[in-house]
């Protein structure tokens, strides 16, 4: 199935056709690496920004076999990208850098890199990267098999394909069983050959991850264990093994967040605020997570109502969106990114909504100092995602409107609740969403993006409406998430006459992108209407980055000019 390049690798000619995603902000290196990888007969996709990469990866969950990324990138630390990829997609990641200092290399390995290459990179090094893919597959098969040996479990499978699921381990040879299942599920693949087997890799969707975090929180982070989590999650096809490995990554993720927060705390208030914003953003969304507004002790940021966060996100998303459009083509000129990514977008949009709904935002957001342990915050960020989605729905309608307005020139945004226009640059859509999330982190200079569509102006004003704080919160970009988003957002903002409306459109645009798919879920744009429903269809990915961004620096992330420069730079390529 090699029609669009996103199909699974050909088993017969492995490693030829290995699908590689290269991420590097240096256009010269990107060009060289692309050529080198093509010479290895690999299928190459290039990316100039980390968030674009995440976008692509999320769009096509199983579209790549391995990721090669530079360590230093403007919009996101390479190590962070590494973590995300590991947690969300569980793909092997190779790091690259011109800097070969042992400490850096060690850091890479600690974060899960399966290799660390020094620039300039030689052909022979690239020829060997398939080993990492192969090794991972073998280990996965082995893990599953060993697990089967010990428990009666159901073979992990993608949720959608339930037909063969449900069988219990009957004592049959697991390998055989797996092979049989493989064959029934994947026609072209020879599951017997681990190198080509499309192992049932668990995709940790937003929904799934939310369940996971929920379970973890219920049990209590300290007492948590894979078995207990699995029981609580109640996901039939998930195995203890899956949970265990995800838990491990989650722990790493949290500890990194904690370290960062500690640094921030010691660094000063602002940072702290920023981080808190992050959490806040995440928190806002979690209504279901029992987060109370400013309830620092619980570490939950109450967005009981739902709105504050959304707002934050909006501006950002918008930004991202724009960025997405812009950058995506640049980085992937060859890929006709016709992405119909409804889900990612929607997920993001919802998140955005959540943000805005974070009413207390102005004050609360800034106040993260009260924020208790970082861990809690981080936890929320992970769990927030699902929440976001909910909100999103209500907002989506609005967003769409804004979205339609959005065209690449984000200058005119007027929010029209019923006006949804498909965004032309859809391809960047999903990514845009992602970006928008980041965008939300936009600099504090941006007026508070009030995601709430015009409809709820009042509502919005109550909450975040141009609450500079909220905007600040959104501007998590510092961490590089939305560098472009930020700038984008800012430029958009500049164009837009002040007013929520302008903000919304931008946000909407982002959201629109996501929504392009025509998924107008009845999103009543009014904030008040945040329905608690959660549309699984919308939730497609865990905009972890979103939370991540939220978590990070709220500091005025980037000088918009800087961003445009960066963008320019990309364009040059």
């Amino acid at each position, binding site marked *: 199935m090699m029609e669009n390049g996103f199909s699974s690798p050909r088993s017969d000619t492995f490693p030829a056709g290995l699908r590689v995603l290269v991420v590097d902000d240096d256009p*010269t290196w990107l060009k060289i690496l692309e050529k080198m990888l093509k010479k290895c007969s690999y299928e190459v996709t290039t990316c100039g920004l980390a968030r674009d990469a995440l976008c692509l990866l999320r769009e096509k969950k199983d579209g790549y076999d391995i990721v090669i990324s*530079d360590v*230093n990138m403007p919009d996101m630390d390479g190590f962070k990208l590494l973590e995300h990829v590991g947690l969300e997609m569980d793909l092997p990641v190779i790091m690259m*850098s011109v800097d070969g200092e042992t400490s850096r290399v060690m850091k890479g390995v600690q974060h899960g890199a399966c290799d660390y290459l020094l620039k300039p990179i030689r052909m022979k090094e690239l020829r060997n990267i398939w080993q990492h893919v192969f090794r991972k597959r073998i280990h996965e098969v082995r893990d599953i098999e060993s697990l089967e040996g010990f428990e009666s479990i159901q073979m992990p499978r993608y949720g959608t394909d339930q037909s063969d699921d449900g069988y219990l381990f009957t004592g049959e040879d697991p390998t055989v069983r797996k092979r049989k299942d493989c064959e029934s599920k994947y026609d072209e693949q020879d599951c017997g050959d681990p190198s080509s087997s499309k192992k049932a890799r668990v995709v940790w969707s937003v929904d799934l991850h939310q369940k996971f975090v929920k379970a973890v929180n219920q049990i209590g982070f300290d007492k948590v264990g894979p078995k207990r989590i699995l029981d609580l999650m109640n996901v039939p096809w998930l195995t203890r093994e899956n949970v265990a490995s995800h838990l491990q990554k989650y722990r790493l993720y949290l500890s990194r967040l904690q370290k960062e927060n500690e640094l921030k705390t010691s660094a000063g208030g602002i940072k702290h605020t920023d981080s808190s914003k992050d959490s806040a953003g995440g928190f806002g969304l979690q209504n279901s997570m029992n987060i109370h507004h400013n309830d620092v002790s619980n570490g939950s940021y109450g967005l009981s109502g739902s709105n504050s966060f959304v707002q934050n996100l909006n501006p950002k998303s918008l930004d991202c969106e724009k960025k997405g459009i812009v950058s995506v083509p640049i980085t992937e000129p060859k890929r006709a990114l016709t992405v119909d990514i409804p889900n990612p977008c929607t997920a993001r949009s919802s998140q955005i909504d959540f943000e805005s709904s974070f009413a207390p935002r102005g004050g609360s957001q800034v106040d993260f100092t009260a924020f208790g342990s970082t861990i809690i915050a981080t936890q929320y960020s992970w769990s927030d995602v699902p929440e976001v989605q909910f909100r999103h729905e209500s907002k989506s309608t609005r967003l769409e409107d804004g979205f339609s307005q959005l065209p690449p020139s984000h200058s005119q945004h007027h929010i029209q609740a019923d006006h949804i226009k498909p965004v032309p640059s859809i391809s960047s859509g999903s990514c845009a969403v992602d970006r928008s999330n980041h965008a939300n982190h936009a600099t504090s200079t941006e007026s508070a993006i009030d995601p709430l569509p015009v409809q709820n102006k009042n509502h919005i004003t109550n909450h975040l409406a141009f609450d500079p704080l909220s905007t600040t919160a959104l501007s998590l970009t510092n961490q590089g998430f939305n560098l472009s988003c930020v700038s984008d957002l800012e430029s958009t903002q500049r164009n837009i006459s002040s007013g929520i409306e302008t903000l919304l459109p931008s946000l909407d645009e982002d959201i629109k992108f996501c929504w392009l798919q025509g998924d107008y879920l009845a999103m009543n744009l009014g904030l008040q209407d945040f329905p608690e429903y959660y549309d699984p269809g919308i939730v497609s990915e865990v905009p972890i980055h979103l939370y991540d961004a939220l978590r990070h620096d709220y500091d005025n992330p980037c000088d918009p000019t800087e961003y445009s420069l960066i963008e320019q730079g990309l364009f*040059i390529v």
Partner: protein
Amino acid sequence: MERNQSRRQLAVMRQSLFDQGYLDEQFIQLEELQDDANPNFVEEVVTLYYRDSARLVTSIEQALRDKSPLDFNKLDSYMHQFKGSSSSIGAKKVKAESTQFREYCRAGNGEGCLRTFQQLKKEYTTLKKKLEGYYQLARQAGPNEIACRPK
């Protein structure tokens, strides 16, 4: 006849770039990547490099011109990027100056940074001129006759 002469000149020029230490092995790697699908690959890469790195050079210059104290972290970060970029085409001397610059940054030696940067710019511009001349000659020698590493 003239073509042959041009080609010979080209080969000599190319060799001297290596002998004089302007280019290193990486440049040869690039030449090896060049093929029928991308017949002007190396030149494209070089062009891209100079276009993209010009930005960085300006940023560094700006940062150096800023009032003291110098932001060594920022300078180091810029230079790290620049070095990475320069390594892509095998710009040997430029890379060496970059490394030196970074060391001065780490030592907090502003004077050293300024000096090294001047030297770096010199090497950077010299190489650019040489490569431009090289490709110009290559075009004269024949469109597809850019000197390649002798097989």
